[in-house]
């Protein structure tokens, strides 16, 4: 049953390591492709980087955006614009009063290319050479600001920051905007462009990156016993969310509903999840309650699973704690095995995957799991997609971020 202020998904857009748009990204995910590759530059030698690969974007924005757009947007904004334009067109470019249209697009890190390029310019050439667009390019709300300009979104433009949960939190906030009547349509998602030697060195310093330099495509392996860290990725995903009432009135195609949002914070450690998974369980429980569904309704979870030793297992433990025996009926997918970790873009891309999974009744695979971790507590979709049941179904996307941020979104069939 659908109520007027229910939130439905009517448009999808993405640019990722797997493809330059949402359909090609989804097709590559179902095919079990990896977006990781050896970096085609001299960073490893120049900076002694211990990591020589990443999941770089498949289609350069310069192939899609105009030259002036490229020059005045940080790459994080470029990716968001590509994804937002696709999502908007995919939704049928809805006729909506600007005051009823919102935008929520997050980045976990912000315009770091612009920040660091600006610093290089200052050091090497002085303040006279600093470009006037530097501040509007580096600010973390730049992606959403440009999206709001593009679409004329005047109900509010927001950029919530919660590290690797940012993209999911953006979608959660957009849901609230629609439910509370502040907007009828909201363009929401996440973006990240951090494949730059400084953040790679910084993540490597925190010992969170995979060092499998000799085999990049096999490096991201959530739940495999030999996982050794995440693969840094880049890109953006954007969804068009709409009140069910508004979508019905214009006869829009509906992919699925965002039926529940659950948020929590660990207040445990700046980077490590609470080993008991208390915050993760709370986020998922709140999301299910918000959606008015139970654990028995959940058929699929898109895991946050980044391919780190501790994080992956904490999450399956949390799922088992919350769902108990019902977790046996869950098809768990760790799509970062293919996309790498898009950081602030991850939660949006994985929500997009959960939406497509529910719509097409197909859970995407987890690749590279040669030897599943014996402590894995939930059935894992490996190598090829798994069919999801017919009828009313519910999926959950989990996204967790450094700082102890937990976001769970419930995606329900339309």
């Amino acid at each position, binding site marked *: 049953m659908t109520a007027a202020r229910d939130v439905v998904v009517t448009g999808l857009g993405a640019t990722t390591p797997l493809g330059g748009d949402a359909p090609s990204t989804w097709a590559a995910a179902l095919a079990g492709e990896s977006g990781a590759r050896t970096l085609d530059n001299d960073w490893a030698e120049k900076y002694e980087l211990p990591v020589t690969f990443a999941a770089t974007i498949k289609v350069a924005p310069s192939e899609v955006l105009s030259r*002036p757009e490229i*020059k005045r947007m940080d790459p994080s904004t470029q990716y968001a614009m590509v994804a937002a334009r696709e999502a908007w067109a995919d939704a049928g470019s809805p006729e909506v009063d600007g005051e009823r249209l919102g935008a929520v697009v997050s980045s976990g890190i912000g315009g770091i290319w612009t920040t660091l390029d600006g610093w290089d310019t200052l050091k090497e050439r002085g303040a006279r050479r600093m*470009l006037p667009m530097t501040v509007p390019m580096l600010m973390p709300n730049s992606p959403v600001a440009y999206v709001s300009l593009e679409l004329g979104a005047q109900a509010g433009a927001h950029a919530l920051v919660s590290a690797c949960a940012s993209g999911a939190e953006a979608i959660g906030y957009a849901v609230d905007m629609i439910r509370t009547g502040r907007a009828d349509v909201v363009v929401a998602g996440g973006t990240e462009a951090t494949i730059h030697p400084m953040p790679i060195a910084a993540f490597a310093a925190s010992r969170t990156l995979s060092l499998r330099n000799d085999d990049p495509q096999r490096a991201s392996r959530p739940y495999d016993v030999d996982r050794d860290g995440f693969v840094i990725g880049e890109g953006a995903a954007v969804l068009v969310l709409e009140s069910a009432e508004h979508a019905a009135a214009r006869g829009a195609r509906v992919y699925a509903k965002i039926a529940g949002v659950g948020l929590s914070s660990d207040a445990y450690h700046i980077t490590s999840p609470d080993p008991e998974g208390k915050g993760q369980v709370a986020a998922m429980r709140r999301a299910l309650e918000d959606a008015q569904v139970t654990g028995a309704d959940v058929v699929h979870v898109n895991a946050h699973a980044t391919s780190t030793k501790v994080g992956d297992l904490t999450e399956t433990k949390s799922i088992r704690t919350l769902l108990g025996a019902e977790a046996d009926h869950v098809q768990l997918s760790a799509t970062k095995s293919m996309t790498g970790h898009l950081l602030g873009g991850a939660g949006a891309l994985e929500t997009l995957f959960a939406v497509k999974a529910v719509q097409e009744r197909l859970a995407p695979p987890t690749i590279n799991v040669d030897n599943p971790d014996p402590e894995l507590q939930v059935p894992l979709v490996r190598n090829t997609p798994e069919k999801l049941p017919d009828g009313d179904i519910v999926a959950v996307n989990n996204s967790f971020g450094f700082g102890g941020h937990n976001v769970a979104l419930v995606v329900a069939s339309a």
Partner: protein
Amino acid sequence: MANTEQEILEGLAEIVAEETGLPTDAVVPEKSFTDDLDIDSLSMMTIVTHAEDKFGVRIPDEEVKNLTTVGDAVKFIAGAQG
């Protein structure tokens, strides 16, 4: 090394085209940056920064407001290179 006014015009047109997406042949001496080419103040300062770099001159902020047309800018740069 001084450029001819024609070289400065061509170089400036390339900078304006990069910044605005306009074709280089739209950037002619009689065009006004704001009224004809729709260049806002931030874009104007970006063009100035690139022009200083390209032509090896200094265009002081107080001078920029006097550069109404493309031709004004070409003349100023030529004079500054003098």
